[in-house]
């Protein structure tokens, strides 16, 4: 599982591929945002995403250095 997700070589079907097409009907506006556990980079503390939107709207950007 982890090897599939963390691919070592850029998968060719990531260009104009199924992930972009699937995004269109996945989690549309109005849907409940999925919660999940992550780790804060600054202090290593475990946090839930929902702690961030509890008080006010939150912008969640996804990405990596590459």
């Amino acid at each position, binding site marked *: *599982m*982890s090897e599939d*997700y*963390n*691919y*070592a*070589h*850029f*998968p*060719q*079907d*990531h*260009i*104009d*591929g199924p*992930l*972009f097409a*699937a*995004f269109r009907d*996945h*989690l*549309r*506006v*109005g*849907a*409940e*945002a*999925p*919660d*999940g*556990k*992550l*780790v*804060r*980079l*600054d202090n290593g503390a475990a*946090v839930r*995403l*929902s702690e*961030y*939107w*509890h*008080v*006010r*709207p*939150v*912008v*969640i*950007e*996804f*990405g*990596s*250095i*590459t």
Partner: protein
Amino acid sequence: MFVYTREAHPGEQIPHHSSLAQKREHARLFQERWSARRDILVDALDGPVHRAYGALPNMTYIVNAAGRIVYRADWTDAHSIEWVLDYLRHETFEKRTTRRVAPFFSELLGHRSAMDYPRVFLEGLLNGGGARAVEEYIDAIEQRRGKGQSDPMRRLWAELTKR
């Protein structure tokens, strides 16, 4: 807030993750390179949060205080994020003053700037994963979109490597 995911374009400089410690180290590099002041949250090694949201390399969501998605984009676009945040401030004001609001649904097909593309993009790949990341990207473009698209990139890449 920023959720650190798998490496979109791994290469010899910055490879794919094989441990959570490595993923955190890459997140730290990211923070330093971009002087990021936002909270950076690192997803688990096999990316459960990233996958739950669609697993695209650079998507953005805005979630309101009730936990509902009010905006989403398959590519991060600063302009629309800004106006949605501005809109949400206006909406909060409306709710306070009129007390009665009715929801409505809206979508947007945006176009991001492609002016500097592909030079800036290839340079980004080179500074990220490294030369291998660039070559694998151009190969993927050739496979999926044909030589008409990949050949200009190969010429550009040859120019970049000459310097």
